[in-house]
């Protein structure tokens, strides 16, 4: 019953408006990216990436 309902919703809502849903998801992704950037994630990424990662090269 639930899976039928989910399938129905997926087919009716998603498959018929695929492009629209994709564009909405892209907007959400960009907002997520910007939010992460503003809350300091870029600094964390930079700190990790600008120093030699001992785990990545297999010595730490």
């Amino acid at each position, binding site marked *: 019953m639930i899976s039928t309902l989910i399938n129905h919703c997926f087919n009716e809502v*998603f498959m018929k408006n*695929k*492009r629209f*849903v*994709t*564009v909405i*998801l*892209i907007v*959400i*992704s*960009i*907002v*997520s*990216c*910007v*939010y*992460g*950037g503003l*809350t300091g*994630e*870029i600094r*964390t*990424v*930079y*700190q*990790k*990436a*600008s*120093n*030699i*990662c*001992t*785990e*990545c*090269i*297999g*010595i*730490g």
Partner: protein
Amino acid sequence: MDNKLRKHGIIRKAIQAIFGILTNGYFKGFLTGTIYQGPLKRFCVPGMNCYSCPGALGACPIGAMQSVFDGRRRRFAFYVVGYLAAIGLLVGRFICGWLCLFGLIQELLYKIPTPKFKVPERLDKILRYFKYVLLILFVFALPFFYRSSFGAGDPFFCKYICPVGTLEGGIPLVLLNSGMRAAAGALFRWKFAILIICILASIFIYRPFCKYMCPLGAFYGLFQKISLLRLSINEDACINCGACQNICKMNVDPVKNPNSAECIRCGECVKACPKAALTFSKNK
């Protein structure tokens, strides 16, 4: 047709190589055994590219994601996940086929003239799920939940599995830096063994890392069916000759499933189709 395909292959490999050189353009690092520390390291490259490669100008998205998940803070990686999701939603696994340096290395190894091995279909199907296990367990769950007795987290995929890090970062830095050479122990040997297996497998199997192990390919693959760039088939024009399926080295049948999560959108099937029934199009 052969000429058309050959030309397409050369153009694609040239683009992969140029992108690889551009994203690893800090040549001084290869001479001095150091890495680039400039502002570009704030941004992730779209493909698998170790940020500890002496030439790397950007951050590896899989490594960056794990560093944000870090068990000390347990933060969700909005920046990296949002960035990767946006790419996946725009072009799906196009990055794998056109911009990944490690993908190019595997393709060149596959060119070595030896008998090629086709993984039996059932085993192939099971092994393809392994990359999702690595993504969920080694990239998301373990780095997020694990905290050592000192309170530190670990980038599990980078530390215990990633052969890209060993090839692009580990080997050059260990060769160029005596301190690191002295520190290389059991973990380095373990990762080196994984790299050797990947290299040997790549000679006989087309892109084995991409098919069975790459967490980034697994992530992008989740968006294949809904991405804006997609493969379309004109069923009226298709004569079911099987040319597209025969040319596909990722073992996808573009007629049955043109937007399979396994397709790296290399476009060889599009070029191989004698009736131009397959095309890249925008999501409708």
